Each structure stands twice: as C-alpha cells, then as structure tokens.
C-alpha cells in the first residue's frame, strides 16, 4: 500500500458533456500501462450536458485502495473547476488552466496551501494553431499535465498509439502532436518539477487490467455461463448491461432491455426456469419494482442472480452519487419468509469471485442470490491483477439431464420433493416424463396447489432447510467474513462493501503510527456469519462501525444477530464515498 504522500491525485474538472470521463479514462490508462497502480473515481450530475463533472485519478507505485480527495494536480477546464476545487489542493500542488480563455484572479483565493504552482496553458490557442478540432483542447491539457508531473511523453504516445492505431497512423500522429504541444508548452514556459509529485513508470511491472466493479461483475457473469440478462437502464448498473450486450453475439448471451424493471426480473425468472443461467440488475427504485417477482423466484425455487447497485435514496434521491443505504432493503425485500444469499463485494476481485459463486449457489440451492454493490465500487476503476478463472467449475446442483428424465416414470416426478437437504430434483420444461406446474401459490411436492396447514408447514420447512444446507456446505461461514490485520488489536473497525479499500488504508495508516487496529469485513449479509462475527467482536477492544449510510444498518444487523452493540460509528451519507483520511482521523480521535 502507498502512504498518502507516495501516491498522487490528479483531477480534471469541467462542464458535463466535454469529454471529462474520456480524459480521466485516458489518464488512468496511461498510468496503468506505465506499470503504476490506479484508482479512478468519476463524479457527475444526472444530466447529459451542463453541470459539473470530474474524473479523479489516484496513482501510486503500490496498490491504490481508494480515492484521496487531496488534489496534487488540478486540471481545470472551466471556471467552476477552479471555484470548486482550489480548496481541495494538497501542499505543493499544481493547477493547470487556460488563463487566456478563463481569466482567474488567484490572489483573491484565501488559504491556498504552501507551494501551489499556477500553470496557465492556452489550450484553446494551441488547439487553433494546430488546426485541431476544438474538442482536442483536452488532449493539449492531458499533455500539459504529464509535463507538470515530470512524466515521460512516451507513456502518452504508447497509449495514443494503442487507442488510435486502428483509425490510421495519421490519427495517432495528429493526437500525439497535439498532446506534445501542451507538454512542450509547459516545459518551455515553466520548466520541470512543477508539482511536488512525480509520475515515474515502474519498469518491468506486470500487466494489469484497469476496470470497474461493474465490469468485473459482467465478466464474472459471462464466465459463469450467463445466457440471458434482462434489465432496464439505471445508474449505477447500466454499464453491466452494456458490457454483457457488447459480448452477447460472441458468447451466445441475450441481453434484453425491457419495458420496465418488473418485466426485467419476470423475464429473467422465465428464462432461468427453462434451464439457462439468468440475471437482472438494478438500483434502489428499479429494484423496488422487482420485489414482488423476487418472491416468485423463491416460491417457485427458480435460480436467479440479481445485481443491486445502490445510490442515495429514498426515491430518486441523488441518482449519480453513492450510498450504502439499501442493505436492509435487499435483505428483507418481498413478502413472506424465504432464504437468499446477499454477497457484499468490497473490490473488483470480490465482484468477480462473488458473481461466479452467486451463479453456482443460485442453481445449487434454487434460490435468489444478490450481489450488492454501489456507485463507488460499480463505477470506479482500478488496476487489478488479471482474473484467475481456470479453476472455476460450473455447479448446477440437482439439475437433471434429459437422459435422467427418461428414467423417470411418468407421473412420479416431484419437482418440489421434500428431501433432507430441502433441495429437490430439477427438471426443466422440455424434458420427458416430468410434466409439472410451478406455482407462486403454496403447492405440494408435485407442484399442485395445496393450502392445508400440514402441507404449508412441510413446504416452508423444506425451503428453509436449503438455507441450512447452504450455510454448512455451499457457503461456509469462513467465506462470509474476513478479519484483516492482526488478530490482537485495541480497535476493530467493522465495515462492508465498497468501503473496504478506504478502511484498509486507514487501518494501515493507523498501524504505521503504532496503533493496534484491525478490520472485520462482512462479506455476506445473508446468511450472516453469526458465530465468526460474535467471536471476534466479543474479544475486541473498541469497535468502530464505518458505513456509507445514516442509520448504521450493518451495526443493526450485528446487534440483531449477536447482541453486540457498536456505539462508535463513523457514517457518511452526503452522497460521497468515505475516504481513508477521514476514517484515519476518526480512528485517532477514539
């Protein structure tokens, strides 16, 4: 892990619709290809044009666990970017802007940190002189920011070449010339070493992927054998639909955009019932529409994978921001009582691995499985080691083959057989000898409607036993939590999901200061790892609950399951993700 001083934060800010996201992605890609570790976090309002967009990229020679809001290089493409972000500068930061197009009186700014350098680069004039398209001001600015960071221009060139070569060598050269002009302007007029931080390539570094949590989930689903996805676009999960759709023809996967979320989940269940691996994805409001059909998945024992990427609610809330406020919603959604799995991935590797696991568990235990993420994890990108996936085995549980079905005596097949594990044999429509009707009404072992008290209790117990089997076999407790750091600590931080990186970094910062701090990461909300969590917290010193919500929902779940009350809480619910600096400050204050 980097110390805060060994990594740097680059931030580009400007008007929405002017290529901010693309610039951030390009900067992050260049740094990743240079062998550096990267974390990129985008902020944007819920509109196409206008409003303020930023792309924040944090770069370090070691693993970058999250964003750092202290800016070392501010690339301001308009006046708002200066107004909004000058107060966030680090000591020794550099500010790059186009003073000719956006005159700005820095002398009027109160409290700029020590050693801040103001670097005015005429993006517009340079672009015009090179007879380049207006939008290429961003490329001038990109070149300028590498000069400010004393980065090697070849790093930019290599990525431009890989990005544009298929459009022709002249496009590569044109882009390179424009970037070079910004780069050279800075060196010529301001010299080197403008920023206290430097961008230095790591020679011989491993090739790594640069991807988002959403990408990791989509790739995990494809690896799992996903055949059908139905969903309705909603921030922050839309890119999962798009990634699956982009790979659809090649991998034989149908991604159907539906008329609404109700159709989305019902279609996914219909497809899964026929024996394909199916999933849907949504965020709070869309998932609210899905809750009735979620119960249908449970009642008809149809495997289903649901990705729920949360954002601030209630209702429309703040559509493009982040929050962990739907933990309880996902745990309890739909009517009645039934088992489900709720995975809480904390980084890209967990997004990938938990998606693989979710598809297996959904089929083995014939129940809905969730992957609960949020905007911060879903849409932030970070460098990740190339996924290890060769060992993955598709496990389809009691799903029969047509050959199995031919041995069934017509009329004997019990689709909902009351077995010891609660898991029944699964034949799908189209099989011989196994005709049955799956019903959302209570039914008997054959699937026929039966409202007798005796049958009701029997079938409720049967379905509930699947959760018992899952806890002991499919997903043992040891896989549902993780204690990071030393077992012996004075302070144990409790957290889940996207806060994993910032908490880990804060824990490391505290340990470097000689404090004894560890981190209990809850990786699965259901089934909750009761015994493991209770054992760790019972012998913990102080406990601090850290969550991106206002009600400390996980602390409530822990109280409910273990009786342990966590009264020290650090909660953020302004739509912004938690960062290591503020968690560290909280640790110190305890």
């Amino acid at each position: 892990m980097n110390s805060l001083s060994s990594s740097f934060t680059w931030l580009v800010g400007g008007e929405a619709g002017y290529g901010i996201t693309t610039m951030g992605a390009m900067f992050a890609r260049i740094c990743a290809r240079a062998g550096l570790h990267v974390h990129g976090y985008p902020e944007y309002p819920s509109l196409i044009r206008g409003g303020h967009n930023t792309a924040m990229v944090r770069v370090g020679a070691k693993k970058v666990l999250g964003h750092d809001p202290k800016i070392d290089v501010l690339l301001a493409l308009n006046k708002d970017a200066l107004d909004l972000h000058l107060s966030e500068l680090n000591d020794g930061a550099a500010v790059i802007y186009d003073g000719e197009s956006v005159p700005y009186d820095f002398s009027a700014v109160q409290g700029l940190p020590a050693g801040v350098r103001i670097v005015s680069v005429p993006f517009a004039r340079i672009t015009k002189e090179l007879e380049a398209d207006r939008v290429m001001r961003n490329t001038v600015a990109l070149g300028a920011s590498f000069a400010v960071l004393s980065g090697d221009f070849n790093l930019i060139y290599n990525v431009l070449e890989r990005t544009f070569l298929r459009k022709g060598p002249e496009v590569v050269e044109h882009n390179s010339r424009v970037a070079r002009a910004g780069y050279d302007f800075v060196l010529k007029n301001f010299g080197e070493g403008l920023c206290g931080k430097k961008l230095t390539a790591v020679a011989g570094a491993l090739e790594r992927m640069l991807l988002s949590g959403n990408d990791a989930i989509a790739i995990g689903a494809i690896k799992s054998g996903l055949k059908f996805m139905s969903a309705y676009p909603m921030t922050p999960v839309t890119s999962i639909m798009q990634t699956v759709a982009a790979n659809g023809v090649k991998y034989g996967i149908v991604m159907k955009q539906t008329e609404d979320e109700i159709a989305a989940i019902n279609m996914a269940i219909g497809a899964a019932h026929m024996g394909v691996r199916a999933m849907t994805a949504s965020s709070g409001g869309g998932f609210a529409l899905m809750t009735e059909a979620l119960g249908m998945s449970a009642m008809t024992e149809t495997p289903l994978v649901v990705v729920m990427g949360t954002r601030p609610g209630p209702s429309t809330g703040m559509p493009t921001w982040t929050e962990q406020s739907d933990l309880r919603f996902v745990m309890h959604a739909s009517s009645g009582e039934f088992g489900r799995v709720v995975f809480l991935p904390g980084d890209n590797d967990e997004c990938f691995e938990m998606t693989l696991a979710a598809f297996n568990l959904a089929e083995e235990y014939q129940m809905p499985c969730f992957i609960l993420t949020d905007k911060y994890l879903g849409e932030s990108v970070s460098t990740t080691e190339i996924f290890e996936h060769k060992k993955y085995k598709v496990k389809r549980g009691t799903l029969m083959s047509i050959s199995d079905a031919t041995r069934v005596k017509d009329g004997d097949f019990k689709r909902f057989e009351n077995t010891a594990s609660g898991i029944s044999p699964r034949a799908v429509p189209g099989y011989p000898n196994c005709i049955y009707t799956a019903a959302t009404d209570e039914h008997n072992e054959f699937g026929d409607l039966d409202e007798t008290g005796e049958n009701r209790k029997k079938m409720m117990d049967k379905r509930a036993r699947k959760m018992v089997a899952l806890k002991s076999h499919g997903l043992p407790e040891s896989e549902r939590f993780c204690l990071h750091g030393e077992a012996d600590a004075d302070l144990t931080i409790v957290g889940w999901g996207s806060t994993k990186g910032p908490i880990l970094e804060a824990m490391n910062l505290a340990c470097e200061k000689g404090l004894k701090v560890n981190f209990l990461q809850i990786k699965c909300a259901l089934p909750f790892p009761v015994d493991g969590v209770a054992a760790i917290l019972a012998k913990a010193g102080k406990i601090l609950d850290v969550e991106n919500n206002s009600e400390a929902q996980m602390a409530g779940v822990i109280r409910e399951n273990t009786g342990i009350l966590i009264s020290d809480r650090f909660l953020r619910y302004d739509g912004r993700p938690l960062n290591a600096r503020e968690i560290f400050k909280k640790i110190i204050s305890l």
Partner: protein
Amino acid sequence: MTTKPLKILQNITELDTGAKCNWCPGCGDFGILIALKQALFELQLDPEMTILVSGIGCGSQAPHLLKTYGFHSLHGRSLPVAAGMKFANHRMKVIAIGGDGDGYGIGISHFINAARRNLDLTYIVQNNQVYSLTKGQTSPTSESGYKSKTTPEGAIEPPFHPLGLAISSGASFVARGFAGDIPHLKEVFKAAISHRGFAHVDVLQPCVTFNKINTYRWYQERIYKLEDDTSYDKKNRLEALKKAEEWGERIPIGVYFAGDRSIYEEAVPQMADLPLCEQEISDVDIDPILKNYI
C-alpha cells in the same frame, strides 16, 4: 441425449391432470380450457414441449388443469415470464393465459410491449369483464355504469377495447372467441397457436357468479362470425382496426387480423443455432475479454 423423443398423444384425456378445479359451475373458463385441449390435441402438439404460463385470477388456475408444463406466475406478469421462456428455449410452444384484470389492467404495459416485440407467443385473455377471484369488482373491460362493490354508483370510465390496442401495438395475429362456442373457439386457438409471432386471443367469457349483465344469453344475442363475411380481409390492418371498434349491438368473433411480420427470435443471432438452454456453459473462455482491459 440432448433431444427427447417426441410424445404423441393418442387420446385427448391424456391432457387431463385430474387436479381438483374450483371454478364455479357454468364458468366460461371450462369452455376455454376444453377448446384449448381440443386445439392442442388436434394440432398434435407434444405436451412436453408446451408450457402454459398464467398470471393470477380464477382462470389462471388453468396450468394445473392441463397436462403440459405450466407456470402459475404473478398477477399481470404472465407475458414477461413467457417471453423469458421463449428466449431461453425457442423450440418450446409457449402459451400465456390470464384474465382481463391481469392482462388489460395491471399487466397492460407488458401486453403492449409483447405485441410490439412479436416473439412467437400465444396470449389468451379470459375476458369476463369483472374481477371474480376477489369477488366482484369493476375490471378494465366492464361496461360504463357497471355497478360493483367498488363502483356502487356505476363505473365512470368507458370499457377498454383490447383488440384495437393489440393491432396498433404491432400484434401480428389478433382474434376474439366466445367461451360459449367451443368448436369455433377451438379453431381460433388452432389458428393462433399455429401463427408465427405474437398471437392475441380475447375470449368473451361469462362470469355466472358476479357478472349479471354480460351473460351467455347477452353474448349469444350479439355475436356473429367474421368468417361468415367473405368480403372481410383479415390481412388488412386498417380494416381490422375498424372492426376492433365494433362493440355493442353486434360483436364480431373470429380472426380480426392475421399479418405477416418477422419474429423477434429470427433477428437474434445468438439463437440462430441451438436454443440458449442447450448451449454449453462449462468452460467459457473469457481471456479475450480480459485482454481488452489491459
């Protein structure tokens, strides 16, 4: 073995499940179920390659009474469930069934989109113009002024005419039958099930318990068969739309519209060869995708 042997029905009673039925004596649902069984039998469809998907309502019990595969889903959601099934295994014959509240009330947006999408599905609506399972409330097709427990002064909204909506939404086959004329209804079902594309059949179905207005007699006095009018061109969409407006003194039954639209499945290359459910998933190679992220 990846394909099952064809199951050929020798006797129509092989479609009976023997399950207990709780429909009221005289319910139009009986006529619909009998006509559907006869249609399936005469078409010699393999019951193991057929699935009946219902919503919630009196008539939605039908899958339990028909020995094909069945899925008794949620109120208003039979169509998206059926669509998912068709995507997963487009070799199956998928028939959705439900009442007027189910399809024209809570499920109306799925109805419009299913017609527009034109997957090869059959959709039968048991239209009795009343909510019966909840014991007699106004439905989207109840006549204006219809008095029920929830509209004691009479329904204010005019009834909804589903056939016109189906045609203008793009349905490639639109028909109407009458539960009191089983031989005719059977023929309508056979045509709908044989049609390639989204086929909608609205079935006029008296509710003997809660609807004292739209009775068997009421219908018998009004219905006439479209096929008796040799000048009627069921391939003419605009004429069909006009015909769909006809309601009151005279009510046409039969095939209103039988168009020719390419089906959704044909435009999906992923489904061109094997159905999705038969495609191998045990060792998916994601390395080419991972490379894109490096």
